[in-house]
């Protein structure tokens, strides 16, 4: 169980990390990066699976089902879309630097 | 029968330009026009008769002129030449409308349609026909070269084992087309360039070439943005500031002019006598009297130890490119006059109307008509 101050520390450090790693990003990457981070929070799929895995009542199961479905959509869709957008940064580019 | 364009040999002394160059002739011929050239007309400009592959070379000037629909010239035709023209022929070229009334009267009386290149209005659309600008560019460039060549000093700075040579100070007076080109060229050669003009908007232009504007601390901007007449006192201050810059200059290139009027006298004898020994003045305004009191148009001479040169017809000193640019100006202008193989000017057109000097036995240019015939403007 992560709780109390520890949670706060993890939260602070993760927030710091998130802020730092994208603090110098060119405008043209804004949309791909938005899409990429959209994909990353697709990790909610893991949570949805756990929630559904422990769901007991039908209602819980239904909600869990919907949750997993949505989360899977987030993860898969986020990946596909980001990948396509980043295609244009192929480094091949006429063999230039 | 196709339109016949004739290009006579230029007869003005010292003129090396030719109205059409081979490449432009080719373009015209491709459009179905017939071009005939007096033998040797291109030679002073280094275009040999054999280079004009698509023109017909005619040895007889009278035959050439008498048989032409359009005559293209650099300088105005002499009165005798006008006599050779067919009535109602068209002549295009510089016409010097402000001088030599006989010539203009001859044109009028022989019912010649004549267009003066110098009268083409300076509007955006007409820039590619603007022979004043194209030839003034050459003048400015050449003036800077002449200054560098005549002065007894280096233009650029040079740090050498035999001492450090300080860069020359070059002063440009009058920042029109020629003045700007002179600034650019003198700067290229490494001189420290200052420039002066009465029009305040030239300051930015001077600076856009990396040169310094001489601030006489008198603003000529009056109400409504128009230039206003300076008071005597302001005029004196202007002259005084200018005199300081003149005294420091190793070379002066003056180009100040007011169209159709004698050039303003800006550099006085007293100023010249304050200049450094070995300095030079290139007075491009010599054709209209010169910006320097001492200038003798066409002559180069020393006053005390200052060299003063007021060259005439500078573009003719670089005849290859001068002719090329002038020919292209003519070509662009012809496009307004000749349509579908016939001479059909749009008389309403601002450019056609503006540049028309004589037609139907009338003088169209108001100032000239008034001078020659009297009456209202």
């Amino acid at each position, binding site marked *: *169980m992560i709780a109390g101050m520890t*949670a706060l520390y*993890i*939260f602070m450090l*993760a927030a*710091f*990390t*998130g*802020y730092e*790693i*994208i603090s*110098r*990003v*060119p*405008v*043209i990457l*804004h949309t*791909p990066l*938005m*899409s*990429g*981070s*959209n*994909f*990353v*929070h*697709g*990790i*909610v799929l*893991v*949570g*949805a*699976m*756990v*929630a*559904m895995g*422990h769901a007991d009542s039908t209602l819980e199961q239904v909600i*869990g*089902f*919907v*949750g*997993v*479905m*949505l989360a*899977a959509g*987030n993860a*898969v*869709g986020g990946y596909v*879309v980001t*990948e*396509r957008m*980043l295609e244009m*940064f192929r480094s091949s*580019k006429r063999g230039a630097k | 029968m196709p339109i016949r364009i004739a290009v006579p040999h230029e007869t003005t002394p010292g003129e090396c330009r030719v109205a059409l160059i081979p490449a432009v002739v080719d373009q015209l011929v491709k459009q179905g026009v017939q071009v005939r050239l007096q033998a040797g007309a291109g030679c002073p400009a280094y275009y040999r008769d054999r280079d004009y592959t698509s023109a017909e070379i005619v040895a007889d000037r009278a035959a050439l002129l008498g048989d032409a629909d359009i005559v293209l010239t650099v300088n105005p035709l002499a009165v005798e030449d006008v006599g050779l023209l067919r009535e109602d022929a068209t002549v295009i070229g510089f016409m010097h409308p402000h001088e030599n009334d006989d010539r203009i009267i001859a044109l009028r009386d022989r019912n010649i349609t004549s267009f003066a290149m110098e009268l083409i209005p300076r509007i*955006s*659309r007409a820039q590619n026909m603007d022979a004043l600008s194209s030839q003034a560019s050459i003048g400015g460039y050449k003036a800077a070269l002449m200054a560098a060549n005549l002065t007894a000093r280096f233009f650029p700075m040079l740090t050498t084992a035999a001492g450090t040579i300080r860069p020359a100070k070059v002063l440009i007076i009058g920042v029109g087309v020629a003045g*700007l080109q002179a600034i*650019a060229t003198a700067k290229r050669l490494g001189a420290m360039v200052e420039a002066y003009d009465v029009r305040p908007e030239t300051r930015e*232009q001077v600076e*856009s070439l990396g040169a310094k504007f001489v601030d006489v601390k008198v603003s000529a901007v009056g109400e409504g943005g128009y230039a206003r007449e300076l008071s005597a006192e302001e005029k004196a201050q202007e002259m005084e500031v200018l005199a300081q810059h003149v005294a420091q200059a190793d070379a002066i290139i003056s180009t100040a002019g007011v169209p159709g009027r004698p050039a303003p006298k800006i550099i006085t004898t007293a100023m010249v006598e304050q200049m450094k020994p070995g300095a030079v003045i290139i007075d491009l305004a010599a054709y209209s009297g010169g910006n320097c009191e001492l200038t003798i148009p066409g002559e180069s001479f020393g006053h005390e130890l200052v060299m003063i040169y007021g060259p005439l017809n500078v573009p003719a000193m670089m005849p290859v490119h001068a002719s090329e640019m002038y020919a292209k100006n003519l070509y662009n202008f012809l496009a307004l006059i000749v349509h579908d193989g016939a001479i059909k000017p749009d008389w309403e057109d601002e450019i056609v109307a503006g540049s028309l000097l004589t037609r139907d036995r009338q003088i169209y240019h108001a100032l000239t008509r008034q001078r020659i015939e009297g009456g209202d403007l």
Partner: protein
Amino acid sequence: MDTIIQISYFVSAVLFILGLKRMSSPVTARDGIVWAGVGMLVATLITFFHPGMHNYLPMTVAIAIGGGLALWSGKKVAMTDMPQMIALYNGMGGGAAGAIAAVELLKGEFPSTSFLALAIAGALIGSISFSGSLVAFAKLQGWARKPLRFPGQQVFNLALLAASIGISIYLIVLGHFSSGLILAFFALALAYGVMMALPIGGADMPVVISLFNALTGLAVAFEGFVLNNAAMIIAGTVVGSAGTLLTQLMAKAMNRSIGSVLFRAFGTAEGGAAEAVTGSMKPIDAADVGVMMAYAERVVIIPGYGMAVAQAQHKIRELSELLIKRGVDVKFAIHPVAGRMPGHMNVLLAEANVPYDLLYDLDEINPAFPQTDVALVIGANDVVNPTARTNPDSPIYGMPILNADLAKNVIVIKRGQGKGFSGVENALFFADNTRMLYGDGQAMTSELIQAVKTL
């Protein structure tokens, strides 16, 4: 097993961070998404081995359905429709967070109030993001073009938000609850999300989507705490923080503040008027132009009098060299009357050592514009004014011009609204494919150089 699961989550959290880091540079962006993808795969697969789980079959079915639909839609959608797809997928993430919270709330077993609070906060944020994102999606998809606005909207929305938060607090204080109450809670949150997104105009949508994206991240992190799932906590928090920064950056790049995007969207009357005439001048950021040019195939640089005034020729040459070194095909288009004297541009460019063979004149370059990716106009105005071609009443009508307007993108560097020599309005600046980079020619070119160098 538990250790392996924990380590896997740890690894995937690290992969997410590294992936995002790589995505923030154009050079490494492409493998950034792969790293993050591997992290996701690891986390998802290992979750199947979570102890004490059941419902495996429907779970797999749900994944297949959700994933399959997303795969299909994500592959087929046109490049131009990407933003709404991001909105859609983001909404789904928010919905999932909400669903997790709902399941947990229904179960009602929280070790402490703080966990309950986190669950509810995550549910609230996730639901807002869910419904808001769907509205954004619908709008961008063209199903609801016009921003919906009505008097008192702002007050109404605030009230709605207050109600949602109020019921959240009530739930937290109460500690246990009926499904009716939960239903009401979700209904309120969803309604607020819808109302929040409705009044926002199309141009501001990307900013709002980014905001919802950050919110979803936060919701996921909160639910991660509830489920004691470190991967969710880290990934969610990182996205929440990065997304917030990104939202700010995007708003800044569009010259808007987030506040004005969200709340001042009402007073757009002024903007509307200008648009009515000829479109509007759209500013752009040097960084963006830098990337645009760095990744272009063909760039044409059009210098004018303004370059001379700014004495920007040296910088321009440096920029062109940089681009050429990257393999971009760079040409200079010299208009016959650019500047204030014949050959004005030649003198300056020669001074700056731009090789003559990069210079093209009007007739040579005009046919090349349709294949040009970026036409960079620096301090030129009249010589690129399409009204010279189209409007017989214009004083410059008939003057041949450089057809910069035919390039795919046009970037204009100038200081402000200054007119050219002829004093006429320039239609090019209002064109759809034109962006204005306002500032002194030299300073802006320096910024462009900087921008290209960082790539």
